[in-house]
């Protein structure tokens, strides 16, 4: 499966940063078998331990210079995945390879080295800034933690503030409560950029902003991306924004990757019934195309005891016997970079629709 992922070409792989080690073909980030179960009841005294399977065997890659959109319902493990990648949470298992260097382990990158290259912007622009520190101190903190002296760190804080469109002389000495939501999110972006990362994870970074500010920040992110040759993982529940910013899109459901493909192919021709449902849940601008009934009903099942086989089968209109027995594997039904984990789309899976009803995918990218 690693081959399938690696063979998918990125449309934006020509922008490569100065720190590049593995060459343009080496994905910036390779994630394999990432897993995190949160214990909710300890197994002591006879009771068996139960776990929330927040992220279960997630594998994907992020190419240099691309924006990988990650979508899925609330609680599907998007944010946990991001926190696992930057090791705010320790994964139970799985490997992360950053531009050819494994993260952790005796010969791999140390956490600190990894975090200089991978940074994150959080959703809540207010909670992610320390109310007691000035903007300048907040940004300089990470630099000082990485051994940069106070004066240089302060100067650099001013530079990155300028970079995100905030006048340093005006904003440096301010406190978070003196800024607007959009300005605060710019500060968060500035903090992430201060360490000159190569990969920035944007965890719902624009979701809490109002639409006009959101558009400004999206434009800023895009400009920064090309100026600093960044790579983004863009986590959002807003399908339109993801379509707008992403080169490829990853769809998660209940801790699993269920579909991954180039944005155009995936939006034009979703392979997984869940993706299909998600996409048709978007509201149309035309009142004639009113949606009367939600395309996806019910809540996702409990991640403590996910359904056997395919986790989506309880809400899927294509579910058959095989779906409850076998867990579908990610694969490319039509070859090419668009991969999906669904029996109905996998030839020879035993599903009645397999091999014939699967919409023909044109390997485009």
């Amino acid at each position, binding site marked *: 499966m690693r081959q399938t992922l690696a063979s998918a070409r990125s449309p934006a792989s020509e922008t490569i940063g100065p720190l590049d080690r593995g060459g343009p073909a080496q994905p910036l980030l390779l994630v394999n078998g990432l897993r995190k179960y949160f214990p909710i009841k300890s197994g002591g005294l006879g009771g068996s331990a139960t776990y929330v399977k927040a992220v279960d065997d997630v594998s994907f890659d992020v190419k240099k210079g691309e*924006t990988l959109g990650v979508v899925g319902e609330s609680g599907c493990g998007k944010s946990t995945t991001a*926190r696992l990648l*930057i090791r*705010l949470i320790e994964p139970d298992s799985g490997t992360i390879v950053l531009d050819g260097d494994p993260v952790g382990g005796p010969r791999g990158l140390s*956490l*600190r080295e990894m*975090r*200089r290259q991978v*940074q*994150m912007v*959080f959703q*809540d622009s207010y*909670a*992610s*800034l*320390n*109310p*007691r*520190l*000035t903007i300048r101190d*907040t940004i300089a*903190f*990470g630099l*000082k*933690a*990485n051994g940069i002296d106070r004066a240089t760190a302060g100067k650099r804080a001013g530079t990155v503030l300028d970079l995100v*469109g*905030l*006048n340093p002389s*005006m904003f440096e*000495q*301010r*406190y978070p*409560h*003196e800024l607007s939501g*959009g*300005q605060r999110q*710019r500060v*968060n972006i500035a*903090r992430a950029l201060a*360490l000159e990362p190569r990969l920035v994870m944007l965890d719902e970074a624009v979701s809490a902003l109002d639409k*006009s500010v959101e*558009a*400004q920040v*999206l*434009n*800023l*992110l*895009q*400009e920064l*991306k090309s100026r600093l040759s960044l790579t983004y993982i863009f986590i959002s529940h807003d399908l339109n924004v993801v379509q*707008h*910013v*992403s080169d490829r899109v990853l769809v998660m459901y209940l801790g699993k990757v269920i579909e991954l493909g180039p944005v155009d192919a995936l939006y034009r021709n979703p392979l997984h019934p869940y993706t299909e449902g998600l996409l048709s849940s978007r509201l149309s601008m035309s009142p004639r195309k009113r949606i009367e009934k939600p395309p996806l009903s019910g809540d996702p099942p409990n991640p403590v005891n996910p359904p056997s086989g395919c986790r989506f089968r309880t809400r899927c209109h294509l579910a058959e016997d095989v779906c409850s027995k076998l867990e579908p594997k990610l694969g490319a039904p039509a070859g090419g970079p668009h991969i999906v984990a669904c029996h109905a789309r996998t030839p020879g899976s035993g599903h009645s629709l397999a091999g014939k009803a699967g919409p023909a995918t044109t390997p485009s990218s």
Partner: protein
Amino acid sequence: MTTVTSAGPIAAATPRKGRRPASRSFWETAWRRLSRDPVALTCGAILLIILLAALLAPWITPHDPYRTSMTRRLLPVGDARHWLGTDELGRDLLTRLVYGGRMSLFMGFAPVVLATLIGGFLGIVAGYCGGAINMAIMRVTDVFYAFPSVLLAVAISGVLGAGLVNSLVSLTLVFTPPLARVAESVTTQVRSQDYVEAARATGASGWRIVLGHVLSNVTGPILIYASSMISVSIVIASGLSFLGLGVSPPHAEWGLMLNTLRQSIYVAPLNAILPGLMIFIVSMSSNLISDSLRASMDVKV
């Protein structure tokens, strides 16, 4: 990514020109509010006067605090030579009250300061580390919690024996668990904040995060709680002396004075309640200041 055409350029967020208003930190705001609070100012002034008097005792008191006089016992308040009268051994009460302030104020502040340092440290470590370390620290403090504070202070002083240092130790032990508890609970709250996560994401070490991000956010609640402990400390310290477990005679200490003058309450009631009045004034003032402190820090910034 294609440009969102509906929005303006990046520079749109740059605010208008002109002088921006001076930024004020949380502490500056809190201090300004506190310094405008009439209750805090009055109580602060009272405490300051008592503190200064205690510090300058040898230079401002009219008599020797230890000189007894069998002929001048229990002179009433308002006597020409002894303004606040004398005690049961004929010693000048005003002088002894001023000298007693040294001991009582020391016993009010020192245990609280020590307990704040120790308890604050333990609580922040427990709160930030969580897990087994939290468990170990907090369960030990729970053991101390199980006893009423006065009883605990009496028990520890009783075991260690009377004396200034021993009462200091016992009071510090009494106040450490609640302060550790407060520090732990606020630290636990702060630890889960996004800005701490963001600081961890920059690769900063635990100590650096505690010093740079946690401390500035937990000091307020810890200080407020500690300041409310000062009055309790004065009262318990006086109580210990009253019971004979604190300072020993002939030292001047308000609790001790209250005890020895107790027998004269029917002969010279005004003299007998004076030390109690001092305890009341000091503990009340520090309580009110603590209240104002809480109010002044109660700003959402």
